[in-house]
C-alpha cells in the first residue's frame, strides 16, 4: 500500500466525493469529516513512513500516460512537498468539521473533496503536465465555492479569480512546452518529467525567457504585486471555508512551484531576476501591509496580510540558499496555519453578526474572551512573535536573503513593523474599547465545533514555533539537495557565486554544526 500511497492520497478524496453523491444530505457532514480524517491519517502515515535522511523523491510512482509525447503520471514526495500535503489534508478536515449551517452542504463537501484531490495532486506531481492538470483543475472547485456560496460580488470575484490565474498558467504552459522542446532537442526524446528536466542545463538566454513564462503562472497564483488584486476580491467574497483553503493551501502552490520549477530549472535566471523579484516582494510586503491598514473589513485585512506574508516567502525563496529556502517553505506551512486560522476566526464572527466591518464591532474582548484570546494568539503569530510558527519561517527567510542583499533585507524587514501596525490596529478596533453596539452585547463565545477547528491550530502554531525540527529537518535535507543542484547546474559566474556550494561548505562549518546537533 505504501508504494501507492501518493496515488491513494490523490484519488481517495475524489472517489469519496463521487460516492458522496449517494450519501443522504443529513449525514453528509459526518461523511465528509470521516473521509477527510481518513485522508489526514493517510497523510500522517506518509509522514511516519517518510525517510528523513533521504533528500530525493520518495514513494515515487510512474505510470505511462502519453509516452509518445513524454507525458507520464509521475508522482513523488520529498521534504519540500510533504508537509504542505499534510497541511492540505488537515485543513480540509477541520474545514469540513467546522462547516456550520451551509446551504447545499452536500455540494460544498463534495466540492471540497475534489479540491483536496487537486491540492494533493499539485504537490506530488513530478511531471510538468500532471502538475499543470492539477494546478488548473484546482481552479474549478474554488470557482464554485466562491461563486456559489460567496458574498454579493461573488460572481465577479470568482470569475476574476479563475480567469486571472487561468491566463497566467496558460503562459506557464507555453513555458513548459518550450522546456519539453529543449529537452527534446537535447536528447531526442520528449519528456515532461521534472527529474529529467533537472538534468538539463540551458543557455542563459533561454533560461531568462522560460523563467519569465513560468513566472507569470506562479506570480499570479502567489499572488505577487502587481498581480494580487484578485485575491482581496476572492477572499472578500468567498465563504469562510473557501478563504481558509485558498489562503492556507492554494496560494502555496505558487511559491511551491517557484521552488520546484523555477529555481532548479533556471538557476542562472533565478540569480538574474533575484533583485527585481526581491524588489517586487518588498513592495508586496510593505505596500500591501499599508493597504491592509487602510481596510475597514477585517477579512480584507487578513487577505492583504496574506499577500504581505507571501512577499516574505518569495523573498526567502529567492535567497537561493538553504536557510532562505527552508525558511520560505516553513513559512508556507506557517502562513497556511496562521492565515487559515485567522480566516476561520473571521468566519466565527461573521456567522454571528453577518458583517465583517470592523466598525461594527469593538469591545468584543468583553463578550467573547475565548475568541479574543485565540484571535490574539493567531494575530501575534501572524505578526511574527518568536515561539510561534510564523517567526521561524520569517526569521529564516529574512536571514537567508540577508546573505544576498543587506539593504533589501532591511527594507523587507519593515514587514515586522507594518505587519504589527495593521494587525494591532485591527485587533484594537475589534476587541478593545467598550461594547458600543447593542447587537454585540450578547454574542455567544466560540462554541465547541469551532473550538475543534481552532484549538489544534493554536497547538500547531505554538508547537512548531517552539520545536520546528520535525518539520524543518526533512525540509532542510531536501532543500540542500535543491541548492546543490542549482549550484552545479548554474553556468554564470554570478550564479556560482550567489548560490552556495554545500559540498565545499561541509569542510568548514558544516562539520562543527553537525556535531552540535
Amino acid at each position, binding site marked *: 500500500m505504501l508504494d501507492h500511497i501518493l496515488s491513494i492520497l490523490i484519488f481517495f478524496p475524489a472517489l469519496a466525493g463521487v460516492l458522496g453523491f449517494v450519501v443522504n444530505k443529513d449525514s453528509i457532514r459526518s461523511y465528509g469529516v470521516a473521509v477527510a480524517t481518513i485522508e489526514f491519517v493517510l497523510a500522517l502515515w506518509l509522514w511516519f513512513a517518510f525517510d528523513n535522511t533521504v533528500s530525493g523523491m520518495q514513494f515515487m510512482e510512474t505510470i505511462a500516460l502519453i509516452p509518445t509525447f513524454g507525458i507520464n503520471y509521475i508522482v513523488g514526495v520529498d521534504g519540500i512537498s510533504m508537509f504542505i500535503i499534510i497541511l492540505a489534508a488537515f485543513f480540509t478536515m477541520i474545514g469540513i468539521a467546522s462547516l456550520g449551517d451551509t446551504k447545499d452542504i452536500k455540494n460544498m463537501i463534495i466540492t471540497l473533496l475534489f479540491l483536496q484531490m487537486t491540492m494533493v495532486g499539485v504537490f506530488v506531481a513530478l511531471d510538468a503536465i500532471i502538475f499543470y492538470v492539477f494546478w488548473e483543475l484546482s481552479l474549478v472547485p474554488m470557482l464554485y465555492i466562491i461563486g456559489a456560496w460567496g458574498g454579493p460580488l461573488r*460572481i465577479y470575484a470568482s470569475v476574476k479569480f479563475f480567469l486571472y490565474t487561468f*491566463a497566467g498558467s496558460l503562459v506557464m504552459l507555453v513555458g513548459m512546452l518550450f522546456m519539453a522542446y529543449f529537452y527534446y532537442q537535447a536528447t531526442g526524446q520528449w519528456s515532461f518529467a521534472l527529474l529529467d528536466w533537472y538534468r538539463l542545463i540551458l543557455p542563459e538566454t533561454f533560461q531568462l525567457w522560460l523563467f519569465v513564462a513560468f513566472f507569470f503562472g506562479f506570480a499570479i497564483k502567489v499572488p505577487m504585486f502587481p498581480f494580487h488584486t484578485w485575491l482581496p476580491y476572492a477572499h472578500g467574497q468567498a465563504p469562510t471555508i473557501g478563504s481558509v483553503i485558498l489562503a492556507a493551501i492554494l496560494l502555496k502552490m505558487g511559491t511551491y512551484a517557484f521552488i520546484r520549477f523555477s529555481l532548479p530549472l533556471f538557476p542562472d535566471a533565478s540569480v538574474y531576476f533575484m533583485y527585481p523579484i526581491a524588489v517586487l516582494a518588498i513592495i508586496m510586503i510593505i505596500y500591501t501591509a499599508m493597504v491592509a491598514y487602510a481596510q475597514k473589513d477585517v477579512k480584507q485585512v487578513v487577505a492583504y496580510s496574506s499577500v504581505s506574508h507571501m512577499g516574505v516567502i518569495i523573498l526567502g525563496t529567492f535567497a537561493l540558499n538553504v536557510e532562505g529556502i527552508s525558511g520560505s517553505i516553513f513559512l508556507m506551512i506557517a502562513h497556511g496555519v496562521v492565515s487559515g486560522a485567522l480566516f476561520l476566526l473571521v468566519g466565527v464572527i461573521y456567522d454571528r453578526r453577518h458583517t465583517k466591518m470592523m466598525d461594527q464591532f469593538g469591545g468584543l474582548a468583553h463578550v467573547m474572551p475565548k475568541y479574543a484570546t485565540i484571535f490574539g494568539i493567531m494575530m501575534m503569530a501572524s505578526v511574527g512573535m518568536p515561539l510561534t510558527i510564523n517567526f521561524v519561517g520569517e526569521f529564516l527567510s529574512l536571514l537567508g536573503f540577508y546573505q544576498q542583499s543587506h539593504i533589501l533585507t532591511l527594507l523587507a524587514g519593515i514587514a515586522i513593523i507594518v505587519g504589527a501596525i495593521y494587525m494591532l490596529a485591527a485587533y484594537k478596533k475589534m476587541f478593545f474599547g467598550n461594547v458600543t453596539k447593542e447587537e454585540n452585547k450578547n454574542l455567544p463565545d466560540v462554541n465547541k465545533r469551532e473550538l475543534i477547528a481552532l484549538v489544534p491550530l493554536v497547538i500547531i502554531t505554538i508547537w512548531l514555533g517552539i520545536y520546528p525540527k520535525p518539520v524543518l529537518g526533512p525540509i532542510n535535507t531536501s532543500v540542500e539537495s535543491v541548492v546543490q543542484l542549482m549550484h552545479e547546474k548554474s553556468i554564470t559566474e554570478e550564479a556560482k557565486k550567489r548560490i552556495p556550494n554545500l559540498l565545499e561548505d561541509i569542510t568548514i562549518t558544516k562539520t562543527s554544526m553537525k556535531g552540535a546537533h
Partner: protein
Amino acid sequence: MLSPVNISMESLNLITLAPMLIPVVGALLIIIMDLFKSEQDKSLYVMISLLILGIDFMALLESAGVFAKDGTVMGVFDVMMIDGLAILSQFIIVVASMLFIPLALSKSRFSEYAYAEFFALFLFMIAGFQFMVSTDNLILVFVGLETASLALYTLIAMHNRDKSFEAAVKYFTMGALAAGFYSFGAMVFYALTGSVEINQIASVLSDNNYADIGFVLVGVVFMLASFGFKLSMVPFHTWTPDVYEGSSSALAGYMSIVPKIAAFVVAMRLFEFLIHSGVVWLEVVLYALVVITMTMANIWALVQQDVKRMLAYSSISHAGFVMAAILIGTTQANSALFFYWILFSVTNLGSFSMLWISRQKKLPSGQQSDHSFDKFSGLAKTSPLAASIMALFMLSLAGLPPFALFWGKMYMISAAVTGGYTVLALIMALNSAIAGYYYLKLIVYMFMKDPIIVHNADISAVNATNAIKTIVGVAVIGTIFAFLTVNSLLEFVTSFVYNSGY
C-alpha cells in the same frame, strides 16, 4: 484520331472509391425505401444510416489497412487519392456523422426528420465530403464540396422555420460567392501550371521557381477567401453565428465539425506546399488571419446572449486556432490539427447535444432565443446532473485539463513552439484565457445564479431520449477519459500524417 483506351481493372484501384460509394448507395436505398412506403418513422432511417455509416467505417478501415501497407494509393485514373490525411479526415467525418445522426431521435418531432430525404441528403453530404478529402484534383474537390454544401443548405432549411430559412439563404448565397472565388482561384492555378492537380501544381511551380509570384498570390488569395469562408476565418466568417442559430442544434454541432475538417484537409494539401516553398506572403497573411480569427471571434463570443451563438463564435475561434497548424506546417502541427479536431468533436458533440436536449418548441415568456443564457440560469438547482455535464463540456472547450480539448490545445501550442512560432504560441495561450470568460459565463449562469425564467418542464429533459442521452454519455466519457486514449490517438494520427508526407 483518338486511339482507343485500354484500361485494366487493377489499375483503376476501385477500392479507393468504396468508402464514398457506400453512403451514395445508402442514400439511394433510403430514397427507394421511401418510394415504396412513405411516412415511415425516423428511427428506421436513423438506424439504416447508422448501418450504412458502419459499413462505410469498415471500408475505411480497409483502406486504412491498404494505406498502412502500401502508402499513398492513387486510383481511378489518379483522381482518387487515398493518403493518411484522407483516411484520417474520413474517419472523423464518418464517426462524427455516426455520433450526430442519432440526435435525430429527439423526443419532440421536428420537420426535417419527417423526411426520408433528410437522411438521404445527409448521406449524400457525407459522400461529398469524402470525395472532397480523398483527392488532390481541384475539380473533384469542387464537385464534392458543392455536393456536400448543397445538401447541407437543404438540411438547414428543412428545419422549417423562419430562422432556418434565413440561415440557409445566407449560407447559400455566401457559399455561391465562395464557389466563385474557388473557381477563380483554381483558374489562376490552372493558368499558371496547366494542371488542376495539386501535386502537379506544386511541381510545376517549383520548376518555375515561383517566377510568377504575383499570379500565385492571386490564386492563393481566392483560395484563401473560399476556404476562409468554409473554415469561417474572419472576415469570411459572418455566416457562422447566424447559420448555427438558425439550424437545429444537432446540425449546428455537426456543422462545427465535419465540413470544417474536410475544408482543413484541402487547405492543408493546398497551402502546405506553398508554405514549405517559402512563400513568405502566405505565411504572413495566414499568421494574421489566424490571429485575427482567434482573437476577434473570442471577443465577439464574449458579448453574446445566446449560448448557441456563443458556441458558434467559439467554433470560429477554434477553427482559427487549428488553422495555425497549417501555418506552422510541421508534421507535429498537422497531426495536432487532426488530434485537436478529434477531441474538439467529442466535446462539441457533447455541448451541442446538451443544447439539443434542452430545445423547447415554444419559448417560455422572457426567454429571448432558443438557448439564451437566461434559460440556463440556475440549472444546477433544478437539474444538477445536466448542469454538471454542460459545465464539463464548457471546461473542456476552455482547455481545462485533463478534459479532452486540453490535450489538443497543449499539443497544438507545443507544435507552435516546436515550429518556432513562439509569439503565436503565446497568442494562442492568451486567447484561451479570453475564451475562458465566455465558457465560464455559462457555468456562472448555471451554478451561481438563481433561475430567471420559469420553465414548465425540466429543460434538461424536454427533448431527451435515451438515444440522445447515450450520445451525451459517450461525449462525457470521451471528454473526461480522453487522457487514456491520447497516446494511441497521437501515435495513430502522427503515423498517418507522417506517412502521407505532411
